[in-house]
C-alpha cells in the first residue's frame, strides 16, 4: 500500500490511505515489456497477499514476527549475517563452536571479489545448542562488525511485513 506520508499531532509518521494500485513506481526490463509469464504470476502472488492483509486489523507498528523454527534433515540451521569479509572459517568455528558441536558450515564467498559474501549458515546437532548460539551471539561483534544470528527456516509463512509497518490510516481516501 502506498500513500502520502504525514506527521500527526504526536509526531508519528502515518500513511494516508490511497486506493490500492498494483503498479510500482519503477518498472524495467524485457520481461515486463513483452508480458512474460513472470509478471502475471508474481502479481497474482502479491494480490493474494494483499487480500490476506485486509483481514488483519489493528496491527501495531513494530509487531514482532514470531515463527517456529524448523528442523532440517540432520540438524538445526542458523543464519549469521554481517560477517566481516576477511573473517576465516576458523574464526566462525571457534566463536560458534563454543555453544555446541557444529555439524556443517557454509561460509560462501563473493564470486567477484573472492572475499566472504557476508553470511554464514551453521548446522547444529540439536535445538538447545542452536538456541544458545542465537541468544548468546546475536548482536555481538566479530572483527568490530555487529553480527546477527537467527534461525534460517520456519514452519509457516509469515504475513506480509507491510502490515506491520503501517499505522492505522487516519484519513479517508479522497475518491
Amino acid at each position, binding site marked *: 500500500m502506498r500513500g502520502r506520508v504525514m506527521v500527526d499531532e504526536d509526531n508519528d509518521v502515518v500513511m494516508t490511505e490511497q486506493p490500492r494500485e498494483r503498479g510500482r513506481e519503477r518498472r524495467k526490463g524485457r520481461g515486463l515489456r513483452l508480458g512474460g509469464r513472470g*509478471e502475471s504470476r508474481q502479481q497474482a502472488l*502479491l494480490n493474494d497477499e494483499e487480500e490476506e492483509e485486509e483481514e488483519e486489523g489493528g496491527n501495531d507498528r513494530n509487531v514482532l514476527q514470531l515463527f517456529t523454527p524448523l528442523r532440517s534433515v540432520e540438524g538445526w540451521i542458523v543464519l549469521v549475517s554481517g560477517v566481516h569479509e576477511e573473517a576465516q572459517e576458523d574464526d566462525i568455528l571457534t566463536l560458534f563452536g563454543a555453544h555446541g558441536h557444529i555439524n556443517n558450515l557454509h561460509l560462501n564467498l563473493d564470486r567477484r571479489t573472492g572475499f566472504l559474501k*557476508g553470511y554464514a549458515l551453521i548446522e547444529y546437532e540439536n535445538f538447545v545448542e542452536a538456541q544458545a548460539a542465537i541468544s548468546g551471539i546475536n548482536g555481538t561483534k566479530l572483527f568490530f562488525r555487529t553480527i546477527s544470528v537467527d534461525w534460517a527456516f520456519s514452519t509457516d509463512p509469515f504475513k506480509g511485513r507491510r502490515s506491520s509497518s503501517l499505522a492505522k490510516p487516519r484519513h479517508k481516501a479522497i475518491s
Partner: protein
Amino acid sequence: MLNKPEHGPSPLKSKTLDSYSGFDSLPSFLRNTAEAQGEEEKQKKAMAAVEEDNGEFYLRYYVGHRGKFGHEFLEFEFRPDGKLRYANNSNYKNDTMIRKEVFLTPAVLKECRRIISESEIMKEDDNNWPEPDRVGRQELEIVMGNEHISFTTSKIGSLVDVHSSQDPEGLRIFYYLVQDLKCFVFSLISLHFKIKPI
C-alpha cells in the same frame, strides 16, 4: 537581570554573551523553514529505510534451454511470504523434476535483500543485453520496495561473453549476482534437504 536569548534558552549559549550561535539566533520565520527542511530530510530517509526493509520482496531466477533432454532448467523463487521454491528439471537419462520448497525466516530474506541491493542490479536495464537464443535463456525478476525489474537474456558462458556484449558493466553485475544467488540458494537447499554421506 540575565540577558535571555531571543528564541528560548540554548544549552550551548552562554547567558551573558549575545554571539551568533547558528540556529538559535535566526529570525523565527527562517528558522521554521530550516527546521522543517531538516525534518523532511530525516523523514524521507527514515521512510526510505522503512520501505526498503518492510516493502515487498520477491525474487525469481530461471535459467534453461530446450534440447535433446527435454526442457532442462533451474529455477528458484523467493516469495513474499517467506517460501523458497526450487526446481531443477532434466530428462537426461530419463531423469525427472526435482522440486523443493521450504519456508525461510525474515532474517534470510533480509540477507537476500542485502545481497541484491549491494549488487545494485536494480539500477540496471536489459535493453542492450543479448536476447535469449537457441543456446538458452535466463530470467531474473525482482520486486524490492517500489521497484520491479524483469530481465531476460541469453545464457552467459563466461566473462568473455560479458565483455563482448553491448553493456559489459550491467551484464557483469548480472553475471556475478546470479552466481552469488545460486550459492545462497544451493547452500540453503542442500543444508535443509541433503543428507551427508557417511
